[in-house]
């Protein structure tokens, strides 16, 4: 009597006794022999990787000790700074501009310590940072955003303050559908939060948030994912996503339409400068770079990042 069962297809959900455990083969050391060519391939890969290491080492030595500039600071400013640095490098061969991130306070910390030549700070300097010099290269507005499906068109300053402090908890009070408002706030220390608090004359401890976010893109994604959410992010990011069809809408502020254009004309109440910061008077390469960053040659870059170029002198 032939005992062996046909191959156990997994479709038969319950395994029968016959291939009960296939003990030894499950912990099978895959007995697949190593075909000759494979071992050859593997050896090659190994040498290739080693090769890259030495090649990049050797290349470093041969190049002249190129001039190097390190910028660290705000993550919002980093992509723009990176693009400006790329263009600057293409215009000045042999120069290396390294843009690092870590937040505005890291920029200030590194500039003071001399680790970085220029700091990227996405806000105006505070009084206790008077020892540093700030050069504004762009403006960025901050706008309130809601889900596109939310019927609310505009909100007064008082209404926003009431929503954020929890005095208004449902949308119907502000002309929307009868649903609980999800308040999205920024993490402590962020420049957009400080700007927002100044505008609403509030202290952060008064705000009753339901969700706290870090960067702008996270704020936008939270609002997109929650039809009853309200948050505030940089206009550039919000406008970019809205234009690409994301279900997010920018609310006008005090009657002024939230758009990059209005920020450029300076009529939008809520905007912040994006500064390059140095300790003392910048010299040499740092000075060259700052002048380049404030010149009209980079305005197109600034616009592609949806920031507002400062009509610099």
């Amino acid at each position, binding site marked *: *009597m032939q005992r*062996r069962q046909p191959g156990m297809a997994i479709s038969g959900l319950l395994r029968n006794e016959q291939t009960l455990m296939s003990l030894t083969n499950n912990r099978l050391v895959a007995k697949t022999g190593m075909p000759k060519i494979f071992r050859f391939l593997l050896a090659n890969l190994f040498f290739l990787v080693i090769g890259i290491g030495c090649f990049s080492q050797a290349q470093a030595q041969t190049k002249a000790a190129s001039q190097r500039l390190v910028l660290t600071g705000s993550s919002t400013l980093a992509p723009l700074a990176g693009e400006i640095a790329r263009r600057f490098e293409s215009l000045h061969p042999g120069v290396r501009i390294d843009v690092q991130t870590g937040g505005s306070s890291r920029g200030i910390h590194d500039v003071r310590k001399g680790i970085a030549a220029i700091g990227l700070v996405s806000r105006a300097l505070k009084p206790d940072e008077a020892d540093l010099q700030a050069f504004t290269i762009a403006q960025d507005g901050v706008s309130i955003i809601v889900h596109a499906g939310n019927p609310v068109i505009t909100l007064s300053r008082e209404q926003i303050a009431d929503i954020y402090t929890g005095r208004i908890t449902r949308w119907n009070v502000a002309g929307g559908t009868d649903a609980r408002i999800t308040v999205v706030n920024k993490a402590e220390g962020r420049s957009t939060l400080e700007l927002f608090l100044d505008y609403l004359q509030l202290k952060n401890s008064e705000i009753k948030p339901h969700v706290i976010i870090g960067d702008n893109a996270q704020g936008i994604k939270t609002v997109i994912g929650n039809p009853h959410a309200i948050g505030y992010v940089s206009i550039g990011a919000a406008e970019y996503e809205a234009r690409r069809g994301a279900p997010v809408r920018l609310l006008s502020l005090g009657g002024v339409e939230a758009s990059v254009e209005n920020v450029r004309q300076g009529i939008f109440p809520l905007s912040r400068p994006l500064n390059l910061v140095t300790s003392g008077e910048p010299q040499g390469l740092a000075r060259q770079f700052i002048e380049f960053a404030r010149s009209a040659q980079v305005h197109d870059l600034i616009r592609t990042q949806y920031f507002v170029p400062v009509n610099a002198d």
Partner: protein
Amino acid sequence: MNANQYADKPDAFTLGPLEEGSACCDPQPVIQVRNLSLLYDGKTALDKVTLDIYKGCITALIGPSGCGKTSFLSAINRLTDLIPGCRVTGEILVNNRDIHHPDMHVQSLRRQVGMVFQKPTPFPLSIRRNLSLPLNEHGITNKTEVAAIIGQVLRDVGLWDEVHDRLDASALSLSGGQQQRLCIARALALEPQILLMDEPCSALDPLASGVVEDLICRLRGRYTIVIVTHNLAQARRIANYAAFFWVSGRAGQLIEFGRCQHIFESPSHELTAAYVNGVRG
């Protein structure tokens, strides 16, 4: 420790104190093997073995290593299921029931047919847990009942005096001979009807091996024992029947089977004679 009756198992063998069993006079076959062959990934390890194992007797399987003795043993309690790529053909009846029958429950088969391996392998648990785990799994969970069986079975294998004060110590702390007796005790605790032993004494020193051998003799009559051994003297001493296997053309075959005296004194097959007298193999 008198024999304790188990209410829900009417026809169970009561363990009872072990005394010298009566030699089996009227041979009743308890295992009938009909042209059993065993293939590992297509290579035949055992070729058309037909054999009867008689109730209450000790049957020794002798022959050179690699002639399929162990495979034959593991076919009886279907341990071959665990070996991938192993095919079993032919019929094995235990108590006149085909062990490959679909509604034969493997666990109860293996409870009826206990097995002891060559290398003593106690579980990495305490001595008590080693014995209580199989009992719990087979439904005997009452504390006192389990304790009684453990005491009884440890006395049977002569281990009680050495371990009764450290039942909760790790079983791995025992010596080789003690571990093997623990494994035998573990199998006996389930009151099997048949006990398969795969060279139980080969990994032990002569002293421990002697103790195990005495134990096997005392089990005669109470249990049907099938023992694989290289030790012809041992086979001659303790076995009632002997089966001689030989490798021919890379497959193990049963050459001759008969009463122990017949096989050793007047084998009918010249291969058996040569092997038994230590000329070949």
